[in-house]
């Protein structure tokens, strides 16, 4: 916490100093306090800078992650639970001990925590010193987006969790593994666009300005549906998908978003040229919306377009690769 705070605080201070320099007062020091509207404007600018800095951190980290994925060579599983298992042949634990959960991963979202001991997976016991291997081997036959029942021992009591594993990133990389204009080794702009963290003229830019909210039971009652995610703000490009504020997205090409983050994962998986089918609830009435992501163009030349191995538009078997 301290490290994060200090790093961001340092960035904020730099930003604040820059703001102060930009708006150095020419009036005497006895001038009354800056009007609140000015402060609000400065705050808006500071937030924009912070957002841009966060985007830079995400983009650079993701590029780093692409290098890391090159080390992902043992394809033992296709769907990941998002946890690390303790591998200790001399362990006396009666199962596979979780030594860490991936932040924001499937296991974490389901409620599994460090220290839990997995004693069964989908009803099959995982026991003895080979328990970690049993977990990994059984996950090899699990498909992303399927439900996995994980039984654990926690504080001497048995607990059961439903985990929805996600596709490994390597699966995404295989779908995007044609070299971009930058050549081998350079970040593939098609990949970055798909994840909306590259230059803001790609596919991800189509979702700029869009805000989604989880649908609580109370909100669901108000909007006339118990499932989906609420569109709080439509994308800046209001023509794209023709969504309206207050729409509830109930399915995206047949997949039901469980929450706003899940909806984002699904949207993240689309490429330029692909068609999106939405089922929404608008003013308590069902409606279907269809639109196609544009083939973007980059400054200085045509866009990369579909490369070898790219899926044709619409060729997306549900769950393969799945954006869960």
């Amino acid at each position, binding site marked *: 916490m301290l490290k994060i705070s200090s790093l961001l605080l340092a960035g904020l201070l730099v930003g604040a100093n820059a703001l102060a320099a930009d708006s150095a007062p020419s009036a005497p020091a006895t001038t009354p306090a800056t009007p609140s509207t000015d402060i609000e404007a400065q705050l808006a600018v500071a937030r924009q800078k912070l*957002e841009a800095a*966060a985007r830079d951190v995400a983009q650079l980290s993701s590029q780093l992650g692409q290098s890391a994925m090159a080390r992902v060579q043992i394809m033992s599983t296709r769907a990941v639970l998002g946890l690390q298992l303790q591998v200790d042949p001399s362990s006396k634990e009666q199962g596979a001990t979780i030594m860490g959960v991936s932040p924001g991963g499937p296991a974490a979202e389901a409620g599994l925590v460090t220290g839990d001991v997995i004693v069964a997976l989908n009803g099959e016991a995982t026991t003895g010193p080979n328990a970690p291997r049993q977990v990994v081997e059984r996950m090899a036959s699990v498909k992303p987006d399927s439900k996995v029942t994980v039984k654990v021992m926690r504080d001497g009591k048995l607990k059961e969790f439903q985990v929805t594993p996600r596709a490994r990133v390597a699966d995404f990389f295989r779908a995007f593994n044609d070299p971009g204009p930058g050549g081998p080794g350079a970040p593939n702009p098609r990949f970055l666009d798909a994840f909306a963290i590259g230059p803001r003229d790609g596919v991800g830019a189509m979702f700029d300005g869009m805000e*989604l909210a989880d649908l609580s039971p109370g909100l669901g009652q108000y909007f006339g549906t118990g499932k989906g995610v609420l569109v709080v703000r439509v994308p800046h490009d209001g023509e794209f998908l023709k969504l309206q504020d207050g729409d509830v997205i109930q399915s995206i090409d047949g997949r039901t978003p469980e929450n706003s983050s899940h909806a984002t994962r699904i949207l993240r998986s689309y490429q330029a040229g692909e068609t999106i089918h939405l089922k929404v609830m608008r003013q308590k009435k069902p409606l279907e919306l269809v639109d196609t992501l544009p083939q973007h163009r980059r400054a200085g030349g045509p866009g990369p377009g579909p490369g070898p191995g790219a899926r044709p538009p619409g060729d997306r078997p549900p769950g393969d690769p799945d954006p869960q």
Partner: protein
Amino acid sequence: MRSAVLLPTVNAEDWLTEHPRQALVKVPAQMAVTELEDQIATIDDQLNAERLESAQAKQLTLLQRDRAQLVESLAQVRYAQNLISGMP
């Protein structure tokens, strides 16, 4: 319970655990967050496989280093998200 190589990211992981994602998300920013989350989960899966199959110290160290950097970045981006939305 955590291994020594995980220690550099403990603070970031603790912060992430204590601050679950918000119900309201800006889609482009959340796309970046989910990308980082998925990369971390993939590395964790790979770490399991490495420990079971070979446990080569160099490979484990590289993966742990990659993971630590991604976790740190995820925490920073999430922290910025919270600041921007007024809920640090």
